[in-house]
């Protein structure tokens, strides 16, 4: 098992090494996890306590209760003692120091030039890494310069070729360390050689597991569960982080949540874990919980911009204008040129009904990151609101082409086509969206509505869809009512009665009233009356009597009819007598 202490020591060493190699985002991530570990009380320093005081009482309650109920032994995942990362040679060459400071000033080419003749592993890595980043920077610039009439964007990182050549030579000769392998993996991935890239990254994380950047590159290459399972990863607690993340991306939210739950045993104060948990909960549509978590997160880390777009989505869904504007203001002040910030502002305008402005901000977000999936989808929504369907379709399609599993965009496409009066065409898109999220009643209901449109009028299919929606615990209660009505329309009164009763039960349970209720009661009363089940009919009639309006009169006349029938008058026959 891994003790918190050993974890701490590992991470501390890793941070030093990572930042020594200028792998800053990995170092940042490791740092976050380091302070996420519950402090051991023996070496509390004032700064530590200050940090931890910020955490909310809620979380403390959660975490403590958990640590009581699930005692330490649960953390038994790696029997093998994980080796501490070896300390580097203490003295860096002077040139290395110079190169690193160039690197820190973002003068990548200069940095790599300084290291041109250095042969140590560390220098080679930094040189290659600096070269890679220089190429990336140039690529970004060229992308804008070269943008041609047909969207020609064949800008590539010109360093890839030489880097690949060098790294593969190093790999063959065995003179490559795990950081080099990481870089090699990245280069291979950029070149489109995914399987080789995976192999290289796996090798890298197996020999040096603390490099989160390598893990996340590896995760982006795991596009299916089969690939994920086929990876040959050695056990380490970092693997759990990886798996949790990978599960989440593969839409296996419950598995992912379980992993995070478990990791919280050690890293009980990790913001990262909390944000990821919130993400998973968001996908499971637990908005209230997610909101609490994000509030909590912002309290601890008020200048955080990452993942805040998700928070804004939650606020949007809850129509919390004030909170959303507050959030937008805050991220705007923190860093206005982050895609997330633009997206949050866009969401705000959308909620206010100012769709043109919202589109402008989504566009800005997309300018900052062309592959920003949710911005494309959200922009599509805005265009739908603006009734600009071709633009909406284009936006949704781009989202789908970036990530074909994005069920929201598929759904949006379906909706857009339905809006244009092409329900049959739209069905294909609804089907696609349901394929990726089969447990969502809203999607089933949308499809059912599509079948129900007057152009198609395929009621049998609509009924099937509504049935699926009911099975997926339809929270809005549309499906049951529609099922009942459809059956009624098709003259299947038995089934209609069944669903009306169910709907009634649901409404009773939720304490709802309304026209649906009257409709159900009236139908049930008449239905049972015609089937001579007078007792049931009377029950429904008396319930109807509680309400005023035409229904009450209807109930009264029904009751009269029932009485007549019960007393034995052949009431029906009267009508047949010639008058």
């Amino acid at each position, binding site marked *: 098992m891994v003790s918190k202490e050993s974890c701490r020591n590992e991470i501390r060493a890793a941070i030093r090494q990572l930042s020594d190699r200028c792998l800053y985002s990995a170092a940042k991530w490791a740092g976050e996890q380091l302070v996420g570990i519950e402090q051991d009380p023996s070496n509390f320093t004032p700064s530590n306590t200050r940090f931890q005081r910020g955490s909310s009482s809620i979380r403390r309650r959660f975490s403590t209760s958990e640590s009581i109920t699930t005692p330490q032994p649960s953390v038994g995942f790696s029997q093998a003692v994980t080796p501490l990362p070896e300390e580097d040679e203490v003295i860096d060459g002077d040139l290395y120091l110079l190169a690193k400071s160039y690197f820190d000033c973002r003068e990548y080419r200069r940095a790599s030039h300084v290291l041109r003749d250095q042969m140590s592993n560390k220098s080679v890595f930094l040189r290659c890494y600096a070269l890679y980043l220089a190429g990336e920077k140039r690529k970004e*610039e060229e992308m804008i*310069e*070269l943008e041609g*009439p047909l969207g020609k964007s064949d800008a590539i990182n010109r360093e890839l070729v030489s880097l690949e050549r060098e790294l593969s030579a190093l790999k063959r000769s065995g003179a490559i360390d795990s950081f080099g392998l990481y870089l090699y993996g990245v280069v291979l991935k950029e070149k489109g050689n995914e399987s080789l890239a995976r192999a290289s990254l796996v090798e890298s994380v197996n020999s040096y597991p603390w490099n989160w950047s390598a893990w996340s590159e590896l995760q982006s290459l795991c596009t299916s569960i089969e690939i994920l399972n086929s990876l040959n990863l050695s056990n380490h607690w970092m693997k759990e982080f990886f798996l949790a993340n990978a599960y989440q991306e593969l839409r296996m939210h419950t598995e992912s949540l379980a992993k995070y739950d478990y990791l919280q045993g050690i890293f009980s104060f990790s913001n990262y874990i909390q944000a990821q948990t919130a993400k998973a909960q968001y996908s499971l549509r637990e908005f209230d919980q997610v909101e609490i978590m994000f509030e909590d997160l912002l309290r601890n880390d008020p200048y955080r911009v990452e993942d805040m777009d998700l928070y804004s989505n939650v606020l949007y869904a809850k129509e919390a204008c004030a909170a959303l504007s507050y959030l937008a203001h805050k991220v705007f002040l923190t860093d206005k040129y982050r895609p997330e910030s633009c997206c949050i502002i866009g969401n705000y305008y959308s909620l206010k009904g100012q769709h043109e402005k919202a589109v402008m901000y989504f566009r800005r977000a997309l300018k900052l990151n062309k592959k920003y999936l949710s911005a494309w989808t959200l922009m599509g929504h805005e265009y739908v609101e603006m009734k600009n369907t*071709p633009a909406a379709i284009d936006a949704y399609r781009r989202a789908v082409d970036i990530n074909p599993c994005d069920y929201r965009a598929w759904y949006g496409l379906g909706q857009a086509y339905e809006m244009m009066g092409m329900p*049959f065409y739209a069905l294909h898109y609804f089907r696609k969206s349901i394929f990726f999220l089969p447990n969502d009643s809203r999607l089933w209901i949308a499809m059912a509505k599509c079948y129900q449109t007057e152009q198609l009028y395929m009621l049998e299919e609509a009924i099937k869809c509504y049935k699926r929606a009911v099975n997926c615990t339809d929270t809005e209660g549309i499906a049951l009512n529609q099922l009942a009505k459809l059956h009624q329309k098709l003259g299947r009164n038995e089934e209609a009665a069944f669903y009306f009763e169910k709907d009634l039960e649901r409404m009773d349970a939720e304490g709802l009233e309304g026209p649906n209720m009257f409709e159900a009661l009236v139908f049930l009363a008449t239905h049972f009356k015609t089937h001579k089940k007078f007792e049931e009919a009377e029950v429904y009639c008396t319930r109807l009597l509680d309400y005023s309006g035409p229904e009450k009169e209807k109930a009264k006349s029904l009751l009269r009819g029932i009485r007549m029938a019960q007393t034995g008058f052949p009431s029906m026959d009267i009508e047949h007598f010639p008058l």
Partner: protein
Amino acid sequence: MAGLTRTAGAFSVTPHKISVCILLEIYAPSAQYLSYPFHSVSEHNRLGLYLLSLTKSCDDIFEPTLEELLHQLRGIGGSMDAWLTGQLIKRFSSLSSPDDLMTFFNEIRGILGNGFVQDDQIILDPNSNLGMFVRRCILAFNLLSFEGVCHLFSSIEVYCKEELCYSAQYGASDKNLESLTQYDQMDMEYVMDKATEKLELQKNACGSLPFHLHTPEALFKVTEGLLITRKEKLRTSKKTTEATPVACSSSSTVEDTLADESLFLRTNLQIQGFLMEQANKIEIHGSSFSSSPIESFLEQLQNLAPELHRVHFLRYLNKLHSDDYFSALDNLLRYFDYSAGTEGFDLVPPSTGCSMYGRYEIALLCLGMMHFRFGHPNLALEVLTEAVRVSQQLSNDTCLAYTLAAMSNLLSEMGIASTTSVLGSSYSPVTSTASSLSVQQRVYILLKESLRRADSLKLRRLVASNHLAMAKFELMHVQRPLLSFGPKASIRHKTCPVSVCKEIRLGAHLISDFSSENSTMTVDGSLSTIWLKNLQKRWGQDMFSHDSGSRKSSIFFQFYDRLVSIPGSVSQLIGASYLLRATSWELFGSAPMARMNTLVYATLFGDSSSSSDAELAYLKLIQHLALYKGYKDAFAALKIAEEKFLTVSKSKMLLLKLQLLHEHALHRGNLKLAQRMCNELGGLASTTMGVDMELKVEASLREARTLLAAKQYSQAANVAHSLFCTCHKFNLQIEKASVLLLLAEIHKKSGNAVLGLPYALASISFCQSFNLDLLKASATLTLAELWLGLGSNHAKRALDLLHGAFPMILGHGGLELRARAYIFEANCYLSDPSFSVSTDSETVLDSLRQASDELEALEYHELAAEALYLISMVYDKLGQLEKREEAAALFKMHILALENPQDVEPNMA
């Protein structure tokens, strides 16, 4: 959203375009620029023509490299070429800084005559094609930012380097090297270094990976590499990448350094033209076209031009023809999602009004046709109904006309019985009025509607194809008078050959006025492409031939030929009209006319038609051969055709083979084989995909005939009776006539002439009202035979009947029918008591000899034996014993062959 905001026709400056500009400067030099003394006007024109085709040709998506360009320049030949290449290279090498580019474009401006013209100066009209080109280049250059100029400059370096490397390796144009600046030479060395470095690297890779299969090829590529055209390079290296994951790390290195720069797409127009040509190819060759090369270049194109959405459509077409339903669907939807159906050529402005909402109704139309092709008629109908509705809503009449045509096509092909529910639910006025009618009537109404709209919208191609469809409809479906109320109204069915003919003629009018509609772009483009290709071909031949005069004329001829050529779709339509003519003549009973039309089709339209149509033409010709020339020729032709159409999906060749084998077996008396073929035909008729009614009818017809040949009269009659009922049920009027005739035959053979007579008469009257002349003639023959069967006192009447039908039989009938008529004539004479053999023997002998010759070719033993028997009898009467013995021997041979058919069983089965 980039797709919606960008203008489709944008244009960017590339090194290749600069080359063209340089050449243009030579073609039309500005006043201060040194001009080349052209020897003759034709030489000058030749250069102009070359430049024109450079800007228009559409044979690839990439612009040619400098090396290819120089190669072509050599092709236009004469004394110009050395000077031209020299100038070109000199001009390029003088561009040593971005500033030189600026001055270059300033100079170029001078070649557009602006106001001030000197006497002898050739000016380029700014509004001509070439002038426009120059203006676009200048405009595009002026729009470039400094970064853009830098990019252009560095790509020019690469563009030149490759050529120099090439010339250095082969020492071909050494003289140009001298004019190089120091700077360029340095660069060239650098390139050479790189090449050798790569070579070494490749060797390393090979050494460590001996199992890599593609190594020799890759090695060859590096040494030869700079010569191979870029496209090939990309393709081969793609292949290597697929081969082994380990090896590709090395091979892709080569690909990148060679191909990463200077991959310049041609102008939008040229690419669109190229894509259209590819689409045509896909369509013509159908599934026999291997789809992977197209797919790979489409992928490339998509990477290079992600906003060119037509690529998706082409991918859809490609997948459609290789029967890949899922990716076809995916690509179709993607295309319309991105382009909203409005992306077209920049020459054709999108028609106003519709573009605001997109034109998704076209998506529906395409989707419907796709479902149709993949055999989902119900889905297709559903989608097309939606298309009708949406195009009515958006008042897109063009689309509506096409949709209606597609719908009627669908209905007539599928003849769905359960369409009422689908059509009934729709709200469109067109289809809902049709809901109470039969499928045929609905087809008719849809066609009429489509035709009306197409006519008013002047969609000539659609009008033509609608006319053809109408002709087909008239041909296939038997009209009954519309006012058939009450018991007294006549319910006679009839066909109307005149209207068929009219429709076909109207359809063929297309050829006279296609020019008003076709897109000039592709024709121009392909013209230029042909011209350029010729240039290269000729350059290769040049080494061997010095006869320049004849060469020129042949090129001119080809050029001219292309000029009058017509767009593929038009020629396809006209081809279809010929095929339809052939079919209608076949039905109405004129074999020579049918044969002629088929031949016209096969020779003139065979290239441009889709392979399934071409197959049909071959099929018809082979059937004709079998009927008129005997089986030997037919089987030989079949073998050729089978090889040719091996790859066509849903090939009809097997069907034809079965039919031929059946006929052959029947004639030879090999009844077992015939029965087997019959059964196989029946199997083909009802597959898992559905039942083919016509085929089924044919199979049972053949079964009845086999039974008849086996002298199982009652069984044959049973089969024929039930067949007649089926035909009646499914409204197959024309087939009814032949079934009636068969029944008459059966009764005749069973010796029950009295029973046969009414059937024969009914058949004749059917044939009369449906204008089936040949069938009528053969029914008349049967009728005559029946009369004779009643007794020899009816011989006179029988002979009269026969002589009435003789012109038709001899003019259009097949071998069998003619032989039967001859034999029967002889029979009539012989059984006529007033006829004396000894005086008038030649009348009889002549017909009998004719018959026996024709039956010989047909290998119809039974009838041949009959003819020979009669001959020998006649000779016997005449007392010519020698000839009698000869005929008798032949008779014996046929009888023996008939009795043991197995020993001469054809190896075809």
